[in-house]
């Protein structure tokens, strides 16, 4: 944007391997720019928590309605894989924090390394998640017929006569072999929550790769590291949500 009569504020680069940062034209100072973006991003994180809030509310509600289903359902999940994934994400939060710190102190190589380690953590997490989903599908625990799978409902049809409907209601049995009430609902909530979380992991990893591109070009340094900071915050939020998902889905009886 061109503007007559006044000059943009430029933050100089700390060294030849870095590029200076020009403060956006409508801000008077770098601090104003930094604080505005920070405030905006925290508000965005609040919307993310509220978005998941709906899912958590659904979880608690149905846990309350069908406690036995949720008890047995939780036992079907592999808590060891869940624990490994929790550790991976916690570690990746640490590497992300180190990456942000390195960017703030203009250490280009270290920033690249820690960002790469964080992306690696994301990949490990998603691979483990893939095998968990695969096992559940093979055991017939995921019964989610697609709307086009020979399934036409107009509200009047007798859903009980549809073949898949029986499958849905026989997803899990209790210790005596009797079908558990609405067993598939537990897995519906499990898949919805973890899949939306997984999508966030993938988006987060993409953002970190984008950060690495900027780091390679020398755009982030002690004078200007705002995007690194923000992506770091995003990654910690992704981690934080999993910290709640893991005990609720895998461990709570």
């Amino acid at each position: 944007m061109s503007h007559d009569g006044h000059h943009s504020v430029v933050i100089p680069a700390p060294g030849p391997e870095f590029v200076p940062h020009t403060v956006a034209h409508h801000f008077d100072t770098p601090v104003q720019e930094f604080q505005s973006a920070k405030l905006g991003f925290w508000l965005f994180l609040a919307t993310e928590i509220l978005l998941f809030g709906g899912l958590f509310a659904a979880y608690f509600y149905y846990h309350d309605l069908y406690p036995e289903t949720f008890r047995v359902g939780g036992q079907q999940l592999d808590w060891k894989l869940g624990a490994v994934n929790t550790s991976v994400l916690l570690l990746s939060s640490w590497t992300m924090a180190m990456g942000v710190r390195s960017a703030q102190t203009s250490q280009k190589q270290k920033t690249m390394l820690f960002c790469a380690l964080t992306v690696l953590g994301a990949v490990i997490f998603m691979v483990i998640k893939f095998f968990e989903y695969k096992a559940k599908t093979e055991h017939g625990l995921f019964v989610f017929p697609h709307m086009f799978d020979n399934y036409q409902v107009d509200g009047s049809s007798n859903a009980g006569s549809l073949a898949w409907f029986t499958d849905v209601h026989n997803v899990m049995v209790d210790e005596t072999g009797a079908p558990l009430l609405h067993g598939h609902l537990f897995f519906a909530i499990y898949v919805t929550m973890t899949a939306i979380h997984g999508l966030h992991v993938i988006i987060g990893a993409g953002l970190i790769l984008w950060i690495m591109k900027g780091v390679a070009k020398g755009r982030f340094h002690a004078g200007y590291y705002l995007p690194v900071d923000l992506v770091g915050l995003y990654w910690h939020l992704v981690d934080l949500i999993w910290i709640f998902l893991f005990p609720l889905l895998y461990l709570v009886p």
Partner: protein
Amino acid sequence: MTTHAPILDTQKAKSEQPKNYLNCSSGFWSWAGTLDHKRIGIMYLIGTGLAFLAGGLFALLVRLHLWEPNGMLFTNDQYNEIFTLHGAFMVFLFVIPAIPGSLGNMILPLMLGAKDVALPRLNLLSFYLWVMGAVLAALAIVLGGFDTGWTFYAPYSLYTNKAVVTIGLGIFLLGFSSIFTGLNFIVTTHKLRAPGLTWFRMPLFVWALYATALLQVLATPVLGITVLLVAFERLYHIGIFDPRLGGDPVLFEHFFWFYSHPAVYIMVLPAFGIISELVSVHSRKPLFGYKLIAFSSLAIAIISFLVWGHHMFTSGQSTYAMFAFSFLTFFVAIPTAIKEFSWVATIWKGSIALNSPMLYTLAFLIIFAIGGLTGVILGALNVDLHLHDTYFVVAHFHYVMMGSIALAFFAGLHHWWPKMFGVMYNETLAKIACVTIFVGFNVTFLPQFEMGSQGMPRRYATYVPEFQPYHSASTVGAIILGSGVALMVSYLVASLFIGKKAMQNQWGGVTLDWLTPTPPPLENFAHAPKVTTEVYDYSTLDLKSTQTPIG
């Protein structure tokens, strides 16, 4: 009426005009890719304006159909689609985004003495999310329409064989458009106020947009996840809202109203903000109870999160919860009444200019008193059990949505039109249109209170003959209302081509938006203005600027 200069002279004058945001660059991409809050505001104005006209057309079709007890135009299924289109277009594409998106974008940074909103790229993104939402809504019509009502209640929205997933995704995008606008306004208000512009020197339109923004950011994500879950439900039968699979449709209603009740205030708070500005400027008097109006916006924002259950008095919830929801609903009336009384007290003994923005404002004050009080009636638990899902409810929320919010939007549009475009519309036609709209509106919706209290249910394609006089009167009113709106659109658009030049400070405002050149230059102010006086201090008014044509 003054005569216009010959065309050649006007063009010459145009080329001599100082550069402003409208003429500083041209071409498609200078608009489509702009980061300027004023141009984005204009694009929102065009977009939401078209959505309003489409929604209004659907409303006229509904009213024409109901001329006769057995319906004149549609089959029952078609009728369901038409009223759903009316509701969805009006709520999601017009009422929620219109005032913040157009007037808010245009005026908020000017009022704060800022060069732009804090996050201009995000601002453009919210506009394009709105566009994508509108495209998906149009696509949903092509793909078979949707007939769930704008509320998308489960389980019907899970079973109906219509394009619910498409419109659901559209609403998801529109939700994030609204979230990003709100987020932007919060940050702008916190970080980009001019030196000396303390919180209690901010114009009340800014306070209202700020309170609105809090709601946009904190309530809309819940709608986002709700429509996503409906989409998953339809695509994969996850069962969360499907009673046959163990899900609870009432949970959908809780989620939906947890957003959609605060959404009512997302819609109405900006309208309150406009009225606060206008009663002061056009009475040339400082606002009565400035701080009370500012805080009442925040109070409404907070209480609005606690009353969603009053939409569900007949849906099955605990009796004690209903007591609480009913009681808390009465509480909203207190800050709302504080506003209404403060506006009236501001006008009292003011130097009132009965121009068209003020006429719309007065119409608002009358209509909103009715819309607000009937809301208190409906909030009473036992009365609501009788009136639930009748035309009484329809009339009540149209007195708020159309009669109050749309009229406040029109008032603000007339008020800031000379600021935005540097031209004045024809005042005589504007006054005629305002009176026509006021009369047409009341003729449309007053009969609906009466037939609703007699038991006419909402959303029915046919009715018993006893209700025909009311329905016919309502249809006549809708036609009057529609012609008033058509007249308004005509002279506003015409003013862009043949309108007189506006004055530098058309109405004699003293907030910062009137201290920039008209229309404002690209970055609004040559230097960030310093604010040294209290807000609405008309002793500082430079009367010469109200007599000086622009250019």
